[in-house]
């Protein structure tokens, strides 16, 4: 998890290139704050300092919002002066990920109310997620409304590739972070506002570890394993394969040139997750793409049906 890779969440930006500078505020209550703001946009935007500071005190981080841009940059909360007296015990009994789960549940409600089918696409870097996504969009365009959230540490290249297809996309840059969290997705949704009964595809940061633990409110996770990786990836990174409902075994057009053992890879994955569905795909040759698109359409129809019923 992130405790192992040491990622942080202080530098997240959504769809933006920004120069940051530091400045200091003095509050009415005498608290002095130094924090970073992102500037350098060629458009106007408002900062509501009171709200932002209230959030900082509560330990939350909030991006500066502008059309096409969400900038994170506010650090975690600062503490208040400590008093001294007797110790006592306080029962907490709360999951560490409770906050993320609360945001995820808000996203999920929003999806359910509007019949939006959300998929969280996870894989290691270089598995061909974006190429697969572009191909999937080409096959689904005109059949149902589409929207994409792209997660990467840096650059908006992936979102640009998606926008080139004509589908709206928002790029989240996580900065030092190694995964998307539900709050970032919630804020991206404010901008993207996917239409009713649409398919939302969220391409997570390329990482087979941390994204497994962070629920984004999606209908399900789809893990993409390319055949240029080892067949023992499911055993090495079991959390991700356990969290996913479908595994796409991608780049299958390259199998003749590799010693990748397909049966073994699927066997390992099913050992971790007996309910995992598997489709062998190649975005390049188009193999398996019909089955994958049919899988999406069936699940999206079910989400729409449930939204109508409520």
């Amino acid at each position, binding site marked *: *998890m*992130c*405790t*192992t890779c*040491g*990622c*942080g*969440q202080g530098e997240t930006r959504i769809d933006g290139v920004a120069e940051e500078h530091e400045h200091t505020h003095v509050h009415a209550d005498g608290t002095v704050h130094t924090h970073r703001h992102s500037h350098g946009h060629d458009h106007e935007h408002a900062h509501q300092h009171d709200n932002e500071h209230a959030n900082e005190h*509560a*330990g*939350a981080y909030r991006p500066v919002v502008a059309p096409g841009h969400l900038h994170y940059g506010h650090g*975690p*909360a*600062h*503490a*208040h*002066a*400590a*008093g*001294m*007296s*007797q*110790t*006592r*015990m*306080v*029962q*907490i*009994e*709360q*999951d*560490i*990920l*409770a*906050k*993320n789960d609360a945001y995820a549940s808000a996203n999920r409600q929003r999806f359910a109310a509007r019949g939006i089918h959300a998929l969280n696409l996870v894989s290691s870097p270089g598995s061909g997620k974006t190429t697969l996504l572009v191909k999937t969009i080409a096959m689904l365009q005109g059949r149902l409304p589409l929207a994409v959230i792209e997660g990467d540490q840096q650059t908006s290249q992936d979102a640009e590739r998606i926008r080139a297809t004509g589908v709206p996309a928002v790029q989240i840059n996580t900065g030092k*972070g190694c*995964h998307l*969290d539900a709050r970032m997705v919630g804020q991206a949704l404010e901008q993207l506002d996917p239409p009713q009964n649409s398919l939302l595809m969220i391409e997570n940061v390329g990482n087979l*570890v*941390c994204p*497994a*633990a*962070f629920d984004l409110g999606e209908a399900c996770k789809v893990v993409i394993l390319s055949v240029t990786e080892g067949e023992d990836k*499911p*055993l090495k990174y*079991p*959390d991700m394969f*356990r969290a996913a409902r479908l595994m796409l075994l991608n780049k299958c057009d390259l199998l003749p040139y590799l010693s990748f053992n397909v049966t073994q890879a699927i066997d*390992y994955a099913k*050992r*971790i997750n*007996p309910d995992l569905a598997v489709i062998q795909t190649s975005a390049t040759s188009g193999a398996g793409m019909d089955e994958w698109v049919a899988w999406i359409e069936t699940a999206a129809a079910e989400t729409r049906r449930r939204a109508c019923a409520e």
Partner: protein
Amino acid sequence: MSLAEGVLQLIEDAAQRENFARVKTIWLEIGRLSSVEPEALAFCFGAVTRGSIAEGARLEFVDVPGRGWCLQCETTVPLAEHYAECPRCGGYQVQVTGGTEMRVKELEVEE
């Protein structure tokens, strides 16, 4: 690091609710199958709590062993890893039922 920040947020929320100003000890329940490295979490926690109400607080890890339900044996069995086979029948049809916890259990605090 996100997890350490999550722990700190829970503590700060509790501080507002329960009115305390300093945390001395934190008990964290971390399951064997939770994919959390206690040592790494402790290291990150030290970094994120600097200057906070939890600065210098002692972290106590409560170990939760992995447990699973073997579909073939129809019984609860101990599990060392997610993908481990059932220690009774050797099958892989085991559903994890315990050991994935990541919880803040209890705090020792000062007013």
